């Protein structure tokens, strides 16, 4: 297990941010840490990257404990933070070579590695321009190239695609996928469901300091129930239907006139539902059934926890 987290807790003052987190990330796999803003994603990432001390529990990276042997952890792991850590007034190449030197590659090895990485991230042509002139996507790619100089076995990415345009985002996703295919352990935090869905082999949902779900995207989706029903109402019927259906389970008002709720997919359930609505005089105009998406999972898991 490249990253092994057991009973991790951390608070800031009297605010508990992480409260007994268990999590494992494996080589050649992408583990996405999914959660809303303020769920504790960045805190967890910073503890794994040795930037923040845990208050309880243990975190091991490639076998090394983050508190007792941070230098060994830093030799194995690389962090790409939310904010790119680049020197605008150095060239792309100078930035990468500098990182190589700080990873204690020799001068020649650092240069060689820089050229290799700049080519790999399609920055070869721009390598000798100052970073100030780079686009947002180029900056992200350069940041990632710098992260990889020391050939880390564990790559930690904190919301890597925030603020990127779709094309740059796709490029970054491809690169992360390739890295995992090459054997790197990838732990990334994100608040975008499509990102987790597309990129992650496993998704851990972090909510209020705990992991509330951990599994593949499909496993998580089936946890929410096999089918979602979407009902469209005409204007005045909506409120009454909403009142009636609220008692039947998590309900979402997803459009101006649409409601969305879980079902077991059986005809009996649908029949009962429609009968009740009919009796109340608010029969929907239209009903459709669909497989739950990751956002259904997310909402269900996080709102269920809110109520408990």
């Amino acid at each position: 297990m490249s990253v092994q987290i057991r009973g991790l807790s951390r608070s800031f003052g009297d605010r508990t941010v992480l409260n007994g987190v268990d999590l494992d990330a494996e080589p050649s796999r992408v583990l996405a840490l999914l959660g809303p803003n303020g769920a504790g994603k960045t805190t967890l990432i910073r503890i794994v990257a040795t930037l923040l001390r845990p208050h309880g529990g243990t975190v091991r990276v490639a076998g090394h404990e983050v508190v007792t042997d941070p230098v060994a952890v830093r030799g194995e792991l690389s962090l790409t933070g939310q904010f790119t850590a680049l020197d605008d007034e150095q060239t792309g190449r100078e930035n990468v070579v500098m990182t190589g030197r700080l990873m204690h590659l020799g001068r020649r090895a650092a240069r060689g590695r820089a050229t290799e990485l700049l080519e790999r991230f399609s920055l070869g042509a721009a390598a000798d321009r100052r970073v100030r002139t780079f686009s947002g996507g180029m900056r992200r790619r350069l940041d990632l190239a710098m992260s990889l100089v020391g050939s880390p076995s564990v790559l930690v990415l904190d919301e890597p695609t925030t603020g990127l345009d779709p094309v740059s985002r796709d490029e970054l996703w491809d690169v992360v996928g390739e890295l995992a295919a090459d054997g790197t352990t990838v732990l990334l935090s994100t608040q975008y469901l499509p990102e987790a869905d597309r990129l992650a082999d496993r998704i851990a949902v972090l909510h209020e300091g705990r992991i509330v779900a951990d599994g593949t995207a499909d496993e998580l989706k089936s946890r929410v129930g096999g089918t979602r029903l979407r009902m469209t109402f005409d204007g005045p019927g909506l409120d009454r239907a909403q009142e009636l259906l609220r008692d039947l389970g998590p309900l979402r008002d997803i459009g101006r006139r649409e409601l969305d709720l879980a079902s077991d997919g059986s005809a009996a359930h649908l029949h009962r539902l429609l009968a009740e609505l009919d009796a109340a005089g608010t029969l929907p105009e239209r009903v459709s059934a669909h497989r739950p998406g990751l956002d259904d999972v997310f909402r269900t898991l996080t709102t269920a926890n809110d109520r408990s």
Partner: protein
Amino acid sequence: MSAYPTAPASGPSAAPSRPTVPATVRPRHTGTRAALSDAATLIGRSVRLTRRDVEMVVLALVLPLMMMLLFVYVFGGAIETGGAYLDYVVPGIVLLCAGFGAASTAPAVAHDMTGGMIDRLRSMPIRPSALLVGHVTASVARNAVATAVVVVVALLMGFRPAAGPLGWLAAAAVVLGYVLALSWLAAALGTVARSVQGANGATFVMLFLPYLSSAFVPVQTMPAFLVPFARYQPVTPVIETVRALLAGLPAGPALWSALAWEAGLLLASFALAAALFRRRTRG
């Protein structure tokens, strides 16, 4: 320095935990050699960044030159110092220039501390405080160049100090001590600052002190309530020392006073910077 990427990896235990990755040979990350290499890398970075920062170069070079021209050609005629005003004012300009040069260390440090750079460095197998060493060393280098330029221009304007080579050397050493102490102080201010602008503002005192010293006018010409402050604040003995050394005169008690201030300020600033850095990066 380039010949040790083949040093043994951290241990055999690294390999089994990642079966699909070929065991990467890790260079050594600890020891004096790694520490010196890190310092050299970050000094190189800071020097490069300084050279490319047009604003900083202007502040460090053009401003002191303008001040010298202003004081010599505009105000100088009206100031009575008992000799050529140029000879009187050059040491003051040199120290004013050193103040500006050292002060720009603060925003540079603050930029790294508040942006992503400090996180990157802290997540690497290095001692992140090498960052401060890089900034301070670049500051000293920048100031050495700026001071040389100011002195050369002064010589062109007719500055003719009587000092021999030893006097020059001694004066240079006193200025160096002053720059080093101020650079560490600026580094400490940059470490605590919450923003680059805040760091800039915090160095105000450093920039202002030379005006309340014997840099531009003799202390005894100031109003009585200012005289004690002007006489005993750190900049005055440093300036008096440099002035005496360049004039080929014995520096007298001012020398000891200057050295004591510099040593005290240097030690206090270094300790402060180290403590603040540790606190800021404690996690």
